[in-house]
């Protein structure tokens, strides 16, 4: 049977997220418990979390979370990393043995800083240097897979139900200002842990529910710019698209949303002249990055979250608030678990981004 990446596996899903605008710490059990009422939206073949603000003591270092098939792969990968980075710390990611999660690979994390000389010799900026390293390991080093590579953030994922994955990774011991969660319902067995979500590159992470119909149009376009879609998942390609639009093209979050969930031409034509020009321009310039088919995504980065639905709103997604916290989930039930007294429940329209930022200086 083919593994994830060798074949495209459509999935249904559950997503949830929480963020504190004040940058206050939230422990991981809050988010993994939120996944419990949405148990039926997953089928035990993938669950995961992204957490922001969890490594304050290493905030200026890139935190690589890596799966290894074998000890020897780790040695090989470490040797490669050392050529390019100064590794400040490398350790096993703590887990607990539970019957629900089995067959785990070797799971390590490294806190490291790129070697300035190497960055200079490749004539790219630091983030591009890190991204290339990740891409290189993931495409060329068999048995090693970097599933998290940002600063002061981390992804945790496994084959299993998301609430069990949370327990497995002892997420209640981490405190972050922002969390996203994902439960997966793939239509066949992904085979390995790297296929679980969130998908992450540098400090951006994506959880996604849907199956996009534009996949290959998006993939073949984005691969022109050095990205390699090794997993063949929607989440992976959406992450790369956002990385390209936000980091490489310098679009704002709102502009990026107008590219991937572009308003219909009829809507654009009804806008005031300036807005119309702007939206037309974005659709004209990035037609291949329009995403069609159902999706609800939560995009996370250092300092914020963006929730976005496809332009027809073919997937459920709801937002709510309580004090400094904002909640996002596929179902209201998940929000109620996180905060029984949540208010201002709102279902964003198709293509309408909901962007939440932590106050400046609070993360």
């Amino acid at each position: 049977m083919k593994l994830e990446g060798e074949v495209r596996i459509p999935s249904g899903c559950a997503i949830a997220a929480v963020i504190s605008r004040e940058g206050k710490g939230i422990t991981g059990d809050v988010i993994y418990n939120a996944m419990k009422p949405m148990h039926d939206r997953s089928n035990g073949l993938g669950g995961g979390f992204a957490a922001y603000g969890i490594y304050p003591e290493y905030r200026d270092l890139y935190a690589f979370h890596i799966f290894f098939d074998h000890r020897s792969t780790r040695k090989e990968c470490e040797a490669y990393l050392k050529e390019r980075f100064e590794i400040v710390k490398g350790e096993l990611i703590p887990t607990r043995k539970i019957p629900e999660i089995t067959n785990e690979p070797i799971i390590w994390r490294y806190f490291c800083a790129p070697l300035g000389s190497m960055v200079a010799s490749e004539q790219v900026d630091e983030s591009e240097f890190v991204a290339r390293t990740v891409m290189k390991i993931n495409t060329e080093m068999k048995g090693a897979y970097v599933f998290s590579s940002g600063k002061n953030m981390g992804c945790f994922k496994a084959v299993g139900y998301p609430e069990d994955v949370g327990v497995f990774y002892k997420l209640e011991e981490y405190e972050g200002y922002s969390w996203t969660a994902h439960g997966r319902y793939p239509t066949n067995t992904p085979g390995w842990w790297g296929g679980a979500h969130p998908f992450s590159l540098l400090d951006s992470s994506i959880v996604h529910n849907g199956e996009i119909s534009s996949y290959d149009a998006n993939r073949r376009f984005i691969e022109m710019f050095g990205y390699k879609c090794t997993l063949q998942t929607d989440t992976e390609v959406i992450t790369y698209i956002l990385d390209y639009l936000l980091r490489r093209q310098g679009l704002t979050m709102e502009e990026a949303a107008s590219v991937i969930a572009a308003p219909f031409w009829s809507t654009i034509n009804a806008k005031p002249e300036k807005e119309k020009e702007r939206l037309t321009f974005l659709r004209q310039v990035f037609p291949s990055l329009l995403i069609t088919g159902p999706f609800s995504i939560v995009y996370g980065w250092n300092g914020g979250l963006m929730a976005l639905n496809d332009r027809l709103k073919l997937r459920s997604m709801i937002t709510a608030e309580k004090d400094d916290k904002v909640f996002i989930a596929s179902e209201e039930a998940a929000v109620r678990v996180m905060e029984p007294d949540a208010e201002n429940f709102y279902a964003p329209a198709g293509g309408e981004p909901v962007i939440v930022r932590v106050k400046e200086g609070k993360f």
Partner: protein
Amino acid sequence: MKDHFIYPEFEVVRNDNRCIQCRVCERQCANEVHSFDPERGIMLSDETKCVNCQRCVSLCPTRALKIVKSDCRLRENANWADDTIKEIYKQANSGGVLLSSMGNPKPLPVYWDKILINASQVTNPPIDPLREPMETKVFLGKKPEKIKRNEDGELVTETTPQLELSMPVMFSAMSYGSISYNAHASLARAATELGICYNTGEGGLHEDFYIYGPNTVVQVASGRFGVHKDYLEAAAAVEIKMGQGAKPGIGGHLPGAKIVGDVSKTRMIPEGSDAISPAPHHDIYSIEDLRQLVYSLKEATEYKKPVIVKVAAVHNIAAIASGIARSGADIIAIDGFRGGTGAAPTRIRDNVGIPIELALASVDQRLRDEGIRNNVSLVVGGSVRSAADVVKAVALGADAVYVATAALLAMGCHLCRTCQSGKCNWGIATQRPELVKRLNPDMGSRRLVNLMDAWRHEIKELMGGMGINSIESLRGNRLMLRGVGLTDKELEILGISHAGE
């Protein structure tokens, strides 16, 4: 010396029980097949002149006529087919190059028919175009590599010129001269009503049609017929014709008999002179020369119009396209070996060039591999026969398609493939006034609009089935295609999986 007799290809079958001797067939046949014998009071047929254009069949009010393939055959021979032998007789009779019209009719593989389209089931929903918006608008032209902002941080929204089409289809080049005034009028009016473009071909633009300029692509071919500043300025885009699918490696040929009146004036050449375009552009012997012509045309039009470079699909098409993409062209048009023509040497039409499906797939992939796919838009033609072919072409990577044969059929063409005779009974490929008037542009343009409306609906249905609600998300989306009965090599070139994979 006496010519070998070649038995007529067709038989006119007249049902005398039905024939009312209204003589419509006689009046409508420019080939003079039918005649009336007043002495015996019967209709007669001279089958040697019949080209099977079906004009008489279509107009016979009592359906008394049919044209059938003659069953008078030479002795069967798997190696020497009937046509092959007859072509030898013709050449032995005349000593000439055989001429043909329209596209390659040989039984070579049609890859469109070996590609199947996907639809959504369970994991994501199909979208119903009757209930949800479904978009087919495309912009052709170079896309900027990097977006720019002004001092206030606002997006700079100016782009290089883009050609806006309401659907990813254009009517491809057919010159005034090769087809009639009324055919051009029909195409121009239909393109305008549809929000797409038609293409003048290499014969210039009749002054009556300048008003359709915003929906006109004007062509600059090796003969430079009818090219002047106003002509370039009238258009929405300028196309440099390097080659055409039906006859790669040679230029257009229009016999002097068709260079009459306005055709001569529009082409800016004397009446009755043969319009033989040179095989190459004599100012383009290499890719760097092409760049100069591209920029000459851009200078002449003040960088306001996209420049299209049209080439025939030939063996090395991916490398050629890559060169064109770096030569300043905004759009590359590729014409496959099944593309039609008003006249071409038979041997060239039937044996030169490659299928558009393979050319498109390899060009699109090559431009992506080189990271320059965004430099150009890709338009493909050469027998795009239906909405399904359009969808397959877009999914393989085309930004839009060119259709000509389908447009001619809509206007009445019955593919008799004798355009070169100039006696088109349907008023299309002719300059004889009594024949030209047979194509009423009110009807011609209406039928073209109908055809494209129908295709647009079908494209939307097919897209909706795939769960795609905008054509942008179909472009290059090869995962939506599967091959049937194709070899591994063919699948590899097409960049698609086999059905069942």
